[in-house]
Each structure stands twice: as C-alpha cells, then as structure tokens.
C-alpha cells in the first residue's frame, strides 16, 4: 500500500527544522559577537593602589612597592605566574607593549625564583620590576581574581583600567589607548 498522495497540510512542518536552526544561528551569532563576560571585575578601578612592598622576584630586577607607581608616569601592572599557561600566551603582546614604550611591572603570584627565571628566559622579560607575591596579598588587594590580569595605573597610583585574562593581539591597541587615556589625570 505505497501511498503516492502528498499531504499539503503537512508541508509547513517540513520547513520547521530550518526555521529552528535559523533561530539557533542568530543566537550563537549574538553570543559570538559579544562573548559572555563571566569575569569578576575589580571594584578597585578608579581607586588608589593599596600600600604594599614586594621583594624582588628575580635577582636581575628590583622588587616593587606602591611608591613606584606615584612617579607621574603611567605604568602597567601585570599579574602573572610561571605555572600559568595563558601567561605564556600573552608574552609576545607584553613585549610589544614594552617596545611601544610602556613600562611594565610584574607581580608573580605564588611562585619560586628559579621558576620565574626559567619562565623569563623562555618567553622574554618585558618587566621593569618584578615583585614576588607569595600570599596573593597584592593580587587580592587590587581586586584580581586570577592570573593573568593586567592593570593600567596612572601617575598618581590610581587604578584606571583592568584587563582580565591574557592580552591577545587584538587587546594591544585597547590597552595602548587606555594608557593614553590614563596620561590625563582624573
């Protein structure tokens, strides 16, 4: 009993999967264009750095203290660690920023001197100073919840901008423009 008759009433249903897929497509497009931001942003943006003094992370660079950020110069504060995989991914971009003339200070989180040295030897050393933060005191004090994160600090020691996650190629321009913005005081 092979039925050859067509069912015109059912025809619209045949396009249903395509319509549903269209909805899915728009949804995903939207998700892709505006990646979901599930980061915990620092409540410290716009506030002064807390007081801290960190010992040197490696022998050839000095340590780091709050006063270093009050010399009238915009600086980047990069929170990193030698055990952090994305930190290696952002190394070329940090180099690029350093070559563009932005001084970068590093804060190594829960790390060891020989590991930091090995990390710098492999991925390059764009840092002017490197502080060693073994108990995450500075990290927590500036409102960072993970590594890597990068902060733009203006000449008065105020946090002006926070970048969460590794700096990718597309982020370099954003950070440079934030640095420029930070040159005019609030």
């Amino acid at each position, binding site marked *: 009993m092979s039925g050859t*008759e067509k069912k015109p009433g059912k025809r619209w249903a045949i396009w249903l999967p395509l319509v549903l897929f269209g909805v899915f497509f728009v949804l995903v497009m939207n998700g*892709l264009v505006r990646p979901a931001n599930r980061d915990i942003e620092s409540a410290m943006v716009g506030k002064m750095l807390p007081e801290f003094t960190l010992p040197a992370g490696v022998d050839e660079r000095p340590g780091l203290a709050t006063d270093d950020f009050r010399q009238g110069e915009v600086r980047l504060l990069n929170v990193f660690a030698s055990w*952090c995989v994305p930190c290696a991914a952002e190394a070329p971009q940090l180099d690029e920023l350093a070559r563009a003339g932005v001084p970068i200070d590093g804060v190594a989180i829960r790390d060891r001197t020989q590991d930091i040295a090995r990390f710098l030897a492999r991925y390059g050393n764009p840092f002017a100073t490197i502080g060693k933060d073994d108990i995450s005191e500075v990290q927590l004090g500036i409102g960072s919840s993970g590594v890597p994160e990068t902060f733009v600090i203006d000449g008065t020691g105020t946090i002006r901008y926070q970048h969460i996650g590794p700096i990718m190629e597309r982020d370099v321009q954003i950070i440079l423009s934030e640095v420029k913005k930070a040159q005019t005081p609030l």
Partner: protein
Amino acid sequence: MIAEAGLALLWFAAALALLQLFASVMTLVGGQSEAEMGGVVRPAAIMQGPLVALSFLMLMWLFIRTDLSVLLVASNSHSAKPFIFKLAGTWGNHEGSMLLWVTVMAMSGSLVALVERRLPERTMIATLAAQAFVSLGFYAFLLFSSNPFERLATPVPEGNGLNPLLQDIGLAFHPPTLYIGYVGLSVAFSFAVGALLTREVGPAFARAMRPWVLGSWIFLTIGITAGSYWAYYELGWGGWWFWDPVENASLMPWLAATALLHSASVLASRDALRTWTIMLGVVAFSMSMVGTFLVRSGILTSVHAFAVDPERGSFILALLAIYIGGALALFGARASTVNEGKQFSLVSREAGLVFNNVALSAILGIVLLGTLYPLLTEAFDTKVSVGPPYFNPVGAIFALPMIVVMAIGPLLRWRRDSFDRIAKVLILPAVLTAGVIVGAVVLAPGIGLLPLLGLALSIGLGIASLLPLLGRNLLRTPLATWGMVLGHFGLAVALFGMASESAFSTERLVAAEIGDTVEVGPWSIELVGIDPVAGPNWTALEANINARYEGGDPISLHPQSRNFTQPPMTTSESALSTRWNGQLYAVVGEEGLDGRWQLRLWWKPFVPLIWIGGLIVALGGALALLGRLLGDMRKAHQVRRIAQRREDNPLHGAAPEPAE
C-alpha cells in the same frame, strides 16, 4: 621535511575532494554520463582516506620525535614526556584534533566509496558529492585557520607541553572515541543528502546507512559511558552526570543517532518513515557539529576571554550555516516530493518505533534548549545556569513513557497487531513493575517519584526486553535480534543503577578524629590515621580507613587530599570499594582547626550498574552491527553466485561439449 610533506598531503587530499565534488556535480546536473565523469568520483574518494591518514601519521611522527621547529609540537609537547603522551599529544590540541576529525571523515569517505555497491550509482554519486562538500569545508578550516604543520622561524630549545595536567590516559583516549562517533554520522548525513538529491529514499538507502549509524552509535555509547565513570571516579563529588554543556554535547548526537537507528530499521524492513529518517540523518550529524562547535568556540563554557577565538568560531559557524542550513533547506524543498512509503496500524511495531522516535526527539529538544538557554538569556543581559532541577524532571516526562513502549514495542508485529496477542507475556513484567512500586512505597516511604518509577520500570523493562527471545531457538536467533535484546536489557540495567543510586544512596559528612568510627549505610568506617605521601609532582595527606561491611572483615581504603605545586592546586582522590551490591565512596577533606578531619562518605547501592549497563548497550550495538555486516556479506555472496550461474549456464547451453 615531514611537516611540509604532511601539509602537501592535506592539500592534495583537499584537491581530490574538490575533484570529487566537481565530477559528481557534473554527473548529476551537467548531463555528463556516469561513465565519463562518474568514474572519477569513487577513486577520488577512496584516495583521500589514505592521504589524510598518512598526513595524520606524519603529525604523530613529529610529536614522537618532538620536532621543536613545528609550532604545534613546540607549544604542546616536551622531549621529557612519556611516549604514550607524546602520541596522544597529537590530538590533544585544537589543530591536531581537527586533523583527527578530518582523518576519520576521509577514512569513512574512502570506506563508503570502496564497499557500498548496493545503491543506484546516481544516488551513490550524490552521496559522495555531499561527503566531498562537507569534507572541503573542514579541509579549508584546517588549511586556512588551523594549520597543524606550521613551522617556527627559529626552533625553540624545549617544548612547552610538560603540563602534567594533560598527561592523563583518559584525556588521551576519550576524545578520539567520541570523534569517531561524531564523524561517522557524517556518512549518514551524506547518505541522507544524496538520497534527497536523487529522491531515492527507500529500504536500500536505509540498509546502506544503517551500519554507519550503528558504528557511530557504539562509539558514542562507549565514549559517554566512559566519560561518566571517569567524572564519577576522579571528581570526588559522588555524582555521575552533571548536565554540563560538554556532557550535553556528547549526549545530543547520541539521542539523535538512537532515534535514527530505530527509524532506519523501520525504513529498511518496512519502507515507512521515509522523510523522518532523512531528517534524522541530517539532524544527527548536525548535533555532532553543533556540539563540537559549542565546545570549541567556547561560547558556552568560556570563563575567560581567551577561551573564545572569534576567528575560528566564525569559521565553524559559517560551516554550520552552510551544511546544516543547506541540508535543511534541501530537506524543505525536496521532502514533500518524497513518497511517504508504506502504511501501518496504530498498534504495530512501526507505531512503537514512531513513539520512541518522537520521545527521543522531544528529549533531544529539551536537552538542546536547556543547553542553549543561558545563551538566550545572555542576549538579554541576564545570566542563568540550567542544571538537574530542569533536566531531570522535564526529561523524565518523555523518558519514562518511552521505556514503557520500549518494553512492549519489540513484541509487536510489523504492520498490524493487537494487544490481546501479547498481553499474556506482558503480565509478568507488568505485575513485577506494579509490585516494585507497591513494595518500594511500603518499605521506603520517603522515596522520590522519579527514582521510584525508574526502579519499577527498569525491572519491568529488564524482563520484557528478554521476552523477544521467548520460544526461539537461541542458536538460530539472528545476531541483530540478540543485539536489540542486549541493547534494551543494558538500558534497563543502567536505569536500575541510576534509580537505585538516586533512591538509596546514603551520605555522611563528618569531622572525625583519628580513631573515630562513622556509620554509613551498612558500613562502619574507622579513621585509623592520616599519613603524608608524595608523588612526582604532588604531596598528599592520605587517610587510612578501615571499612567493614555489616561487621565483616575490614577493607583498607586510602583517599587522599593532594597538593600540586605546578600549578598549585588541591584535589581530592576518592577511594572506592566495590561489592556486588554497590560501592562505598570515600573522600577526605582538610584538617579543621581542632585537629579533626573532614570525611565524606557515600554508600551507593548498585551504582556500578549504570556503567555496566552502558557497556551492555554498546555490546548489543556491536552484535547488531556484526549481524548486519555478516548478513550483507552473505547476501552479496549469493548475488554473486546467482550471477555466476547465469553467466555459466548460457555458456553451457550455447556451447555444448563437442561430440567426440
């Protein structure tokens, strides 16, 4: 040199895919005779498999040799890595896993071009055109945006991939298993598109497609089962399924493949459900691609911006739009011209399978919607997460009736049947199901509704699934029937494990002093001591626990709380004790300020049945596949013998032996 050769092979394979597409399109629409251009199609498809496989082997060789002038090797491997992890490193990264995906795809394309001779040549050429079209997209993705063979300008002294986190045997072999399942479905997709193009939708099409669906489905089943046990065992949370987007990404193709398997069997034996089978063929592979995309692009699982690579995400999204959108548009345009095939009665095996298909599709829709819902609300700036409170009850509304039909369906005859005929044999499972419900309500009044129904139905299904063997000569029962029976029985076993875990698990969370004894279910557990132990890159505090089952001999268990240095993190190593009737699951936490230790203990009756059931399901699939393949081979042999005889006979007639 090896890297360049590997890349060249890939380009060559891509060129062959282009040739395959061009020749088949010319044959289909250009009016070229099948003899002219069509003859190129199969060889082009067959060649691609070995070429890409060779390319994959070259990448593997680069990893084995740790060739640090190759970017991928330098960033994912290390000369000090153990051999097996160097090998697994080949596909343990984005580029390598995409090459693996393409390899499986090209090998499937080769195999289907080599062995499939039953379909009309035109349909076969259309199928290979679709396969070439899909392959081309993935070749392009690989060559233009994920080249695995990229060289470094200056080789680095040492690789970056000694991360011990990635040196895990489960991580090494879990993705390939799932990938074989995902990509195998691409052949079903190509068959569906090919059949739509030539309007040749019939039993022959279903029979050609079925082994591919079965094969993929077996791998998916194994992959999901293994993944679930792994998470259960390693995690220390005591759960076995978390409705995580990544888990859902593997479940959705499985649901679609299960539905496709059943509707293809209706089409193969009864020539009904034509359009529906075609649509499922498109949907199953679409779910593989969507699942992979959702995971790969990071739009669902991302916790940090670096997880999302917009360029690659857009590339895959474009591929999805072309393939899924294109196939569904073709489906819309062509499906109404496909004959509906044979009729059947409301009480028949077909109707049972239709019900199963509708229920599976409903569950698939529910899982898909639940997985995408956070994305939907994100568009309106609301963050939500969807978990078990949604998936469990809403999914069960369709899963439980489906299980009832699963018990009855295989007993029904094709085309038309009546309940009166099978009522007698169904009395036993029905009575047992009711008995379990009554018994459980009386003995364990606090039992939840879902576990109760799951428990009762699993008993009923377990018995009913064996009934098709009743009154048969077991030695002569076809392997495919054995496969079906085992598949359904395995599901009953797994369901019993799930329901039992959910209904009867007991949990104790205590802070214990050394020497304390804790009761959990029938076990009494004594914390004997805590000792420090050390591994190659971790130190741990290991609890020494004596566990006695109902006062029996003590079993020594050693759960650990591990501290890693690079990167610094703490993990819990659970300790398990398995008996025939369940598992004891012990986790040790940290030391409190007062010197007591946190112990988390579960007694989970019959929990291992979940995974044993999953493996039985996969075994059933394997038997069914073996049965089908042997049957096909026997049939092909017969056809050849008949043809041979025809060839011989005229000879005999035309040229009788000359008289002496």
